[in-house]
């Protein structure tokens, strides 16, 4: 009837490091033993600066990395909530409710392709580690952004793992290939042996879904989607996303059935008609 939240805790962590990654992007690491211990790749946490009720609602962020009792998040200041989180300093408190949602399916596919657009980079470091531990031989990341300054540093995807290859794409050509990240995708698709994972802006995901429709089916094709959230744990019914139901179009909850979904379950035409989640 519902996904269990038995693993979910609300923990007050202490920020231990804030790394500036350029272009305003930061990686915030906090001592959050529970989250760091149980979060699976693709799951997220609802964050707020410790104890603060301004803004009122927490903000959802993918768990980007875990190491011992520390969990890390990648974000950039795009609005009131992210501005406050990006300004956190070591020693300050960070509240995290999680882990929430369904993560990526990690299986031992021979190869994996990670398609990352802008801040969609966030879930990949943790996913890549899990894939490699599960026996995937090579992981290729195609990482795109508007310009070089907005690219997630290539070395942070691999974190020292030689089995991870990163190909960069920028819209303005300031680094790597010029164009859209999806332009680089077809060359890496080889049907049954490459699992495909994607996270990025909706138009990128729609373009990817179209490319996959015209290609041999990968063993796994999953995307991590966004929706504005009230609660993040399946109670407010605020985070509806369009899916292809048994009898036509239906809504599903991003926070509970997602954020990671199989490409073929999403109603991409309907999703494209929705306004972007971000309101400046």
């Amino acid at each position, binding site marked *: 009837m519902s996904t269990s939240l038995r693993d979910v805790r609300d923990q007050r962590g202490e920020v231990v490091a804030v790394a500036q990654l350029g272009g305003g992007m930061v990686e915030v690491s906090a001592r959050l033993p529970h989250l760091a211990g149980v979060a699976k790749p693709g799951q997220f946490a609802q964050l707020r600066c410790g104890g603060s009720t301004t803004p009122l609602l927490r903000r959802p962020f993918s768990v980007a990395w875990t190491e011992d009792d520390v969990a890390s998040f990648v974000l950039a200041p795009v609005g009131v909530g992210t501005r406050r989180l990006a300004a956190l300093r070591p020693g300050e408190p960070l509240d995290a409710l999680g882990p929430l949602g369904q993560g990526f399916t990690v299986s031992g596919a021979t190869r994996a392709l990670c398609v990352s657009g802008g801040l969609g980079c966030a879930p990949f470091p943790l996913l890549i580690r899990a894939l490699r531990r599960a026996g995937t031989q090579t992981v290729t990341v195609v990482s795109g952004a508007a310009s070089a300054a907005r690219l997630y540093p290539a070395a942070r995807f691999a974190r020292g793992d030689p089995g991870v290859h990163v190909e960069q794409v920028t819209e303005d050509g300031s680094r790597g290939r010029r164009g859209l990240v999806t332009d680089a995708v077809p060359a890496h698709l080889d049907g049954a042996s490459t699992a495909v994972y994607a996270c990025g802006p909706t138009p990128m995901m729609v373009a990817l879904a179209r490319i996959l429709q015209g290609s041999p089916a990968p063993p796994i094709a999953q995307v991590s989607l966004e929706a504005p959230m009230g609660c993040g744990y399946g109670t407010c019914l605020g*985070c509806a996303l369009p899916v292809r139901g048994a009898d036509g179009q239906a809504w599903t909850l991003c926070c509970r059935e997602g954020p990671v979904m199989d490409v073929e379950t999403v109603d991409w035409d309907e999703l494209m008609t929705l306004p972007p989640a971000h309101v400046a």
Partner: protein
Amino acid sequence: MPELQVDLGRGLRLSNPVGLASGTAGFGFELADLVDLDRIGALYTKGTTRMPRAGNPPPRVAETAGGMLNSIGLQNPGVEHVATVYAPLFSQWRCAVIVNVAGATVDEYVQCVRILDGADGIAGYELNISCPNIAHGLDLGRDPGEAARLTAAVRAVTERCIVVKLSPNVSDIGAVAAAVESAGADAISAVNTFVGLKMHRQARRPVLAGSGTGGLSGPAIKPLAVAAVAAVRAAVRIPVIGVGGIIDTGDAVDFIIAGADAVQIGTATFPDPSTAVRIVDGLTEHLAMVGISHLSELRWHPQEPTIGLFAAAGVAPPP
């Protein structure tokens, strides 16, 4: 030991006055892992309708200063599913589960309550005559005569406690309250959300889908909700349940002073699932701190002459 029990009428006694508001607690099982449902007084379920509803297209929620707008569109699996699949789960928690019912016609409410009356585990009904997010959702709640007709029709088919949930989007909330009291309501909850509109500056249109309006909740509405509760309290004798913008014990106390017998916590549960349980503990501490044994002693009686703070505390003013 201070006494937190509250009597809502028709034999429905809550262990304490703190409830989870409709639409912010699902049907219980959704957040049972996050909120200790044995510790709160009541859980008011998501609005339940005669037929299943898929809900509105997204975006359905948008944050605003000190609050949020929602336009969920009463997504729910329909009353038959609630009666047969969800109700059997209710008795596993110690809180009273009050099913919130919504509809577009009097007949839909009556049918829902008839079906739910056949199920065990339901402590009572909260009639939502005030949902701003469905077509006609407000009509039954705006007119005192219509609200009374609805209440009387439901009263005729159930012996369980009936709470009528009022809309603040009316010109005279006291008149609606008095009408439903005389039609047989056991208690009144006030208030539902206020109609609001948030604009998307780049797109030059509303953020929320459809007409763009949504229901405003959260701390931003608290003073408005307290005023509504005071107006309802002045108009009726039955128990009043205050709701709107409560995030801590002090907020709950304000509603009780204004005339509420119980409270509901809504939006505050989203960022902080432990809010309601914290307020239960906070109310006990508050009673001990001010040295009274029952919450009703906190109530403001507007007709009584004002007693100076020093006199109230039994001390002489400084010379």
